[in-house]
């Protein structure tokens, strides 16, 4: 039994999307629950990917290919997962702050979060504080992530936190910030809950917050 879960994890690690989908189906047919398959197969595999990426043994494309295999498995599982064992670790709203058009880093963070089982809502770039507020009202995420790559735009992280505060939503979410000019000290100074210097750390931090 556990054999097949291990196989799912290792095929996922290798990025074999079709095989992962087939194995997930086989596991279901053999009587394993969707939740078991998710936790001990797919997520277990992705965890290993995350660990090895952080250690420098895996490269970004390998992580993305593994994430694709994760999605292939999820496509089989999703219709069967009851609301209670919701497929996601939590909802994560992410965007690049107002005035800033850099999104390569933000996109990578998003992809890694999805790989780790988060359901993400991507607001894109040049996202005004009001747009973050609206997204929080609409999607009720666990975490809001903001990206800024410019000295001139990182101040808009503070404006966004202020806007959430004013809308009475600040305490309903955890706020993470990141991007080249952002530091842990700055995060603390503007009242964010956490900072991460890169995508792999972002996943670890998000898991702790979620």
């Amino acid at each position: 039994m556990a054999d097949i879960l291990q196989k799912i994890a290792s095929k996922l690690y290798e990025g074999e999307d079709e095989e992962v989908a087939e194995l997930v189906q086989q596991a279901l047919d053999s009587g394993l629950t969707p939740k078991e398959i998710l936790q001990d197969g797919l997520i277990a595999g992705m965890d290993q990917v995350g660990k090895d990426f952080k250690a420098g043994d895996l490269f970004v494309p390998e992580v993305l290919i593994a994430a694709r295999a994760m999605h292939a498995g999820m496509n089989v599982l999703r219709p069967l997962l009851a609301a209670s064992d919701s497929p996601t670790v939590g909802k994560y709203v992410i965007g690049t702050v107002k005035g800033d058009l850099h999104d390569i880093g933000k996109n990578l963070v998003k992809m890694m979060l999805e790989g780790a089982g988060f359901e993400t809502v991507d607001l894109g770039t040049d996202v005004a504080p009001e747009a973050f507020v609206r997204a929080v009202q609409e999607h009720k995420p666990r975490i809001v992530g903001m990206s800024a790559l410019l000295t001139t735009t990182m101040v808009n992280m503070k404006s966004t936190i202020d806007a959430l505060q004013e809308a009475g939503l600040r305490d309903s979410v955890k706020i993470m910030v990141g991007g080249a000019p952002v530091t842990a000290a700055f995060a603390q100074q503007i009242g964010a809950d956490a900072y991460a210097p890169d995508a792999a750390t972002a996943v670890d931090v998000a898991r702790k917050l979620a």
Partner: protein
Amino acid sequence: MSEQVPIETLHPTIRMLSDEQIQAIHNTSLDILSRTGIVMKNEKARRLLLDAGAWESDGRIKIPEHLVMSAIGSAPSRIPMYNRLGELTMPLEGGNVFFGSGSDCVFTIDVETGRRRKATYDDVYRIARLTDGLDEMDFVMSMSNPSDVPPMDVYIHGFVGMIRGSVKPNVYTANHRGDMEDIYRIACAVAGSEQRLRERPFLMLYAESISPLLYPDESVDKLLFCAEKGIPVTYPPSPNTGGGGPITLAGALALGNAECLVGLVLTQLVRPGTPFLYGMNTAALDMRSAIVSYGAPEWPTGMAAWCDIARYYGLPVWGAAGATDSKVVDAQAGLEAAISIMTAFLTRCNLVHDVGYIEYGSTSSMEMLVIADEIIRDVRFIMNGVEVSERTLAREAIHRATPGGGFLADEHTLRNWKWAQFRPRVMDRSRYDEWAERGAKDMAARANERARRILAEHDVPPLPEAAEEEIRAVLRRRAGK
């Protein structure tokens, strides 16, 4: 013997692309423009393109070949750049190669404490002054986004810091048209008048589209501003391999070429003859760290390739060198800078920026600038080639020499040593004991000393009072006073 025609000295060059390769990349770029199309967020530019013969389909603007070719035809083949005193110091043309710093770093390495910290206005000014004092540096860029000024005024203070700190031509950045107008006002005051600025431009805008194929409103607006005024602009996209561009260099070049040509077309539609510097940036998105690498060999390889394309079009060309991904000034920094500087020379890139960047463009370093200055001097020696003439063949000196005796005290040595040999300034060739006695300093420590010495001793002529007045007026207006 009567006077003979001298033997010409060969100065080494490289070619990265064959004619056939250039043609294939050019053709692909034309396909990208006419079949794939671009997304144009600036309404004025959209109208310009459509009125000139571009069309819209699938939500994209498609640009036909004839627009591109006529823009290449009307763009100047050379951009003579002046210093702010009105002297021609940087003719961007032919095989000329000019080096300068980079823009907008977040951090700097404090030259006094060695600590990495957020950059301030004073850093822009001081690094500009250092750059002014370095012989091999031909132009300045801001090197910092000052963190101690109001965020909306960052680019104004960046510009002011540069022109106060250096007389050398500058390449500046800006946020939007409002910044452009204020910078232009200050520049006119420096030059004396609008006409004088157009005749002797000492500044060039650096703006960029977003690869792939996206043209943001404000970025295009800045480009149009330069064309309206007829002042120099460069608009290099960054199809970084695996990030903004395909993972393969040929694809990145085809995309970057197409994207850059759109900028060219726009400037030439607004004002034929607008000085436009062609180029792009092909850094690599490193697949392990996910940083955009400034030390990767993809960049110089790409640079040599787009310099070949620029020559095919007959346009002056932009590039980058002298930067590193290293967090400190170490062997990696020297290695990455040397390789890129050598390539920039060999490919005859006209304007080479980013010299002195460390930490993949996040941090500026005065030590790195000083070391790169030394590397440039060193590589320039190689580029000078081997003069072959009666004075260098040393026929008579060889004839005179005692077999096994050497040339140290020969008249030929004493007469020619000064120009014939390279003399380093920062690199150390002293004997062990002397080196130890002088504190056993490594290259970074010596570069630090040289930087501090130049800062202490180098004088820069002040701005004309009219310019200082204009700066005060601009900042007053911005503060709402």
